């Protein structure tokens, strides 16, 4: 196990592993997403109060879930980087932040599309939407930090500091935003059980799973690109490209 981790954080090993596994993971993710979404959209029953509009849940909820999870994994990576100076952790943060921003935007966009028929407006300043918007701003701020330094190490460290502070602060922001606006549906999926009917829940869980696999695949690709950018002068990168030719 230990050996596996030490290999995983070495750039050439990770690069090769990602190169080998990417096509499989990518294809599986597309398959699972298609399964979950099409099941949800075409075969599951329509909701009693919201009708068919609720079906956007099969994209909205997975996107929102992925967007938040990416941030929390980035927080773990930032701690890893700040304590052990593992470069792979910073590669991870820098590759994942744009993905996180993308999925946060997707969650907001689908939320707006969903809100139009249910609330009668594209945007409501309620707790969940507001904190998602703040998450998006935070992602964009982190991305804007990428180019503010002359040194790679400084960028990595600045990013991990701000990711960590944001990670500590995010629950507090969420809590205060909720005090600010105590109203909205509470989270539908909880550990103790769900208020969603099984027929709707299963396709939802499948598409959530699909989104996670998809992010893993794309994240690996992005990390590969970032690794090449950093290690372009190293011999192992050169040999890989020579083999390709």
């Amino acid at each position: 196990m230990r050996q596996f981790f030490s290999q995983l954080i070495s750039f050439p090993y990770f690069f090769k592993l990602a190169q080998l596994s990417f096509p499989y993971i990518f294809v599986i993710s597309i398959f699972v997403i298609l399964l979950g979404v099409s099941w949800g959209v075409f075969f599951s029953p329509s909701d009693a109060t919201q009708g068919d509009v609720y079906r956007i849940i099969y994209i909205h909820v997975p996107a929102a879930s992925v967007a938040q999870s990416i941030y929390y994994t980035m927080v773990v990576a930032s701690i890893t980087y700040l304590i052990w100076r593992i470069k792979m952790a910073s590669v991870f943060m820098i590759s994942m932040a744009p993905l996180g921003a993308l999925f946060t935007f997707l969650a907001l966009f689908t939320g707006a599309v969903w809100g139009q028929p249910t609330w009668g407006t594209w945007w409501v300043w309620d707790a969940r939407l507001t904190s998602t918007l703040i998450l998006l701003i935070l992602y964009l701020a982190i991305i804007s930090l990428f180019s503010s330094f002359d040194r790679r190490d400084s960028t990595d460290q600045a990013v991990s500091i701000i990711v960590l502070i944001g990670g500590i602060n995010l629950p507090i922001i969420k809590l205060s935003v909720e005090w600010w606006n105590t109203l909205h549906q509470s989270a539908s999926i909880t550990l103790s059980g769900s208020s969603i009917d099984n027929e709707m829940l299963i396709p939802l869980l499948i598409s959530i799973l699909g989104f996670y696999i998809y992010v893993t695949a794309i994240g690996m690709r992005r990390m590969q690109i970032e690794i090449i950018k950093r290690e372009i002068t190293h011999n192992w990168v050169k040999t890989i490209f020579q083999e390709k030719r």
Partner: protein
Amino acid sequence: MRNFYFKTFQRDSRVYLSRSSSFLGPIVFFLITITLYPIAFGSDEEQLAELAAGIIWISILLANLLSHQFIFNEDYKDGSLDLVLTSGKSLFLWASIKIFVNWYFSSLPLIFISIFTSFMLYLPFDAALILAITLFLGTPILSMFGALAGALTLERGNIVGSSIVIPLCLPALILGILAIQSYKNEELFFYIFLLAAFLFFSIPILIASCLGAIKLHFE
């Protein structure tokens, strides 16, 4: 008492007082933004009273972040930071003193001025007192976030820095405004205690990360 920390305090105070721009800049900025709101929204008494807490807090937030962006910048450029690093003194204490001096000269005047402007925005007297209390607790948080933004972008000193930290200041803003809005209610102390908790929670974490951010530039 002529040691390192005391001298840092004196030096920074004198630097601050020697330049009217750093002293008056935030005040002018604050007064102008406060004036813009009634011009934009109209001078309806009831409406302004409803918005007053938010207007003052937002203006202070922006004025504060802008004025604290350059706390460490000058020291970095003129080499004073090098000397501090060679001194072997506690950087934590040094940064705390610097932030305190900046807070004292740029935020404290704003708190007093905001009490007067709150009457211009028809905020009731009781609410104005609560406003002052929340600002006392809240502005140090904003100062520290501003300092962090400045420390992260020492070389450049651009707008990126302060835009990073604005979303992180949100709890202070929300708790402050909620406290003012419930100035007649029993929730008041709930919000004020939480704001105080957020302040003391932020102090060590933010100053430590300021130092981390400064050290990025010395590697």
